[in-house]
Each structure stands twice: as C-alpha cells, then as structure tokens.
C-alpha cells in the first residue's frame, strides 16, 4: 500500500486510525507501507511528506 493510500485509509476508517494512534510504526508496517515511505511519514517533515505525496521536489 502506498503512503497516500494509507493516509486516505486513516482519514476514513476510525478503526485503522485507532490502530495507528496506538502504535504508529506497527500499524503502518502491517498495512504494507514500504520502509522508505514509512521513513518519510515518520520524518515529521511536512515538506518532505507533501513532496512525496505529490511527487514534487522538496524545497
């Protein structure tokens, strides 16, 4: 699952969001988000996440 698909899932499924709140890294890994995209998600860098989701060059 791509990071974008996973974030859409979290926005629309309260059960999956609950899993994410309880254990973010395990929930993302169990959902099949790649190691690279998990690193981006957990970077805390809004620009990097945005760029990944839109395929822009981070500035």
């Amino acid at each position: 699952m791509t990071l974008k698909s996973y974030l859409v899932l979290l926005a629309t499924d309260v059960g999956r969001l609950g899993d994410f709140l309880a254990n973010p890294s395990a929930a993302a890994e169990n959902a099949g988000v790649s190691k690279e995209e998990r690193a981006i998600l957990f970077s805390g860098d809004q620009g990097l996440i945005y760029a990944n989701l839109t395929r822009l060059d981070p500035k």
Partner: protein
Amino acid sequence: MIKMNDEHLIVVGTGIRTVGQLSMESLAWIKTADKVLYVASDPIAEEVIMALNPEGAESMAHFYGENKQRTETYRQMVEHVMANLRAGRRVCFAVYGHPGVLVSPTHEAIRRARAEGFKARMLPAISTEDCLFADLGVDPVSGCQSLEATDFLSNLRYIDPHGHVLLWQIGGLGDPTFKRYSFDVRGMPQLVRKLMRYYPPHHLVHLYEAAIFPGVEPAIHSGPLHYLAQIRPMSNSTLYIPPVSAPFPDPAAWWGPSGVAGVRE
C-alpha cells in the same frame, strides 16, 4: 414529521489535517452527493474525496490562476455550484479548513442557493483557529480579536491589546491575487508600524502554521514585533499576538457580597 437530510446543497470542510479532522457527517455527505465540487489544499483531502465519490468528484482548483483576482475565482466557483444545482444535482461543496471561516464563496453559494429556492446547509469543521487554540494554548474566553491582515492594514480597525489577537493571511498581506507558492508581502513594515500603536516593539509575537499531516508538529516562529518587518511569512501563516497585560478593571463596575452587582451608569 420533520424533513431530514433533504438539502440540495451541503457545504463541508475537510479540516486542516484531513487524517483525524474530517467529520463522519462530512464523509457521509461527500460519499452520497451527486456532485462533490471541492477545493483541497492537501493531496490527502483530494484523494479521500475522489475515493469516496469517484463519479461525482470534481476539483474547482482550475478556477485559480497565477496573479488572477481571487474575487473572480470565487465568483466562478459559485456560478459552477449554482449550475449544478439548477441541473438537479445534489451538491456537496467541500473546502479545506472550516467552510465558513475565511472562505467567501461557500457563504455566497448558500445565500444564492436559498434565494433560488434550494435547501442549503453548512456544516462546521476544524479551522486553523481551532488548531491554533490547541497548539498555542490560547483560550479566547479572555477576549480574542480575529482579523484578516489586509483588512486590518487598509481599514480603520481597532485592537484591544489586553486580549488575544489573530491576524489571518499575513502571508498574503496586501495582495488580492492568487499565488501558487508565495505572495509579494510589501505591506509588512506598514503593518508593524500600525501594530506598534498598540504594542511595544519588543512584544513577543508568533507566526503560526498548522500541521496538515499526522506526526508533524505545527510551525511556530516567535520573535519581537519589530522584527516582523524583516521577514516573509509563508502564504498560510497566521500572526498570533498575546495580550500585553490583563485588562484594566472597569472603575464603573461595583461588587456586591455575592459577586458582580452591576455597573454604575
């Protein structure tokens, strides 16, 4: 028997951080509308809308144009909403944040729809203001003024420096056109001079930008008011100015044995 959920136009907001801030009611309206006309600021909100209603989702972002007057863009959006209503479609007009805060076409669409006999409703959502209250620990109960920065600069507005003050869209100060990335903020020195009528130059102020993704901290840049003239805020920054002090007591108020008894006329 009352009629429920028979609106022709429903206006919703996707919140600032779509993950966790998009209400169940808004999700349901997005899913069930014939047409979802939306303006999204982040790729997740857009993707959610398209996933929930792949047949009816239509972005209105194409109405924006570099250096185009925002008022013209908003007029076109409202016309598009009205055209879909007149075609007999149940329309969900979705925007980011709160649909009634700093968004004029949503209010105008509701006004126009009702004027033409359509039933229309706006749902509340989470705005930047709500995020700011939470992130900066601000309780507006002690007084809070909320002003659009360009409006404050260009009109005879008055500030109560003993309450909280929020200046919106400071990153687009003085520019009525749309810019994709950053605005030409020429009015900042004038804005700072106007604020110094109320605040000392070293009064600590905060530029605030809410987080739009989970796990991201809000961007908060703090510094003395006078320094603001030398920086260029992000386009979606909000200026928060804390009170200079507690308010002065009203000498006309008088207290009885069980609390405030009244105000002398």
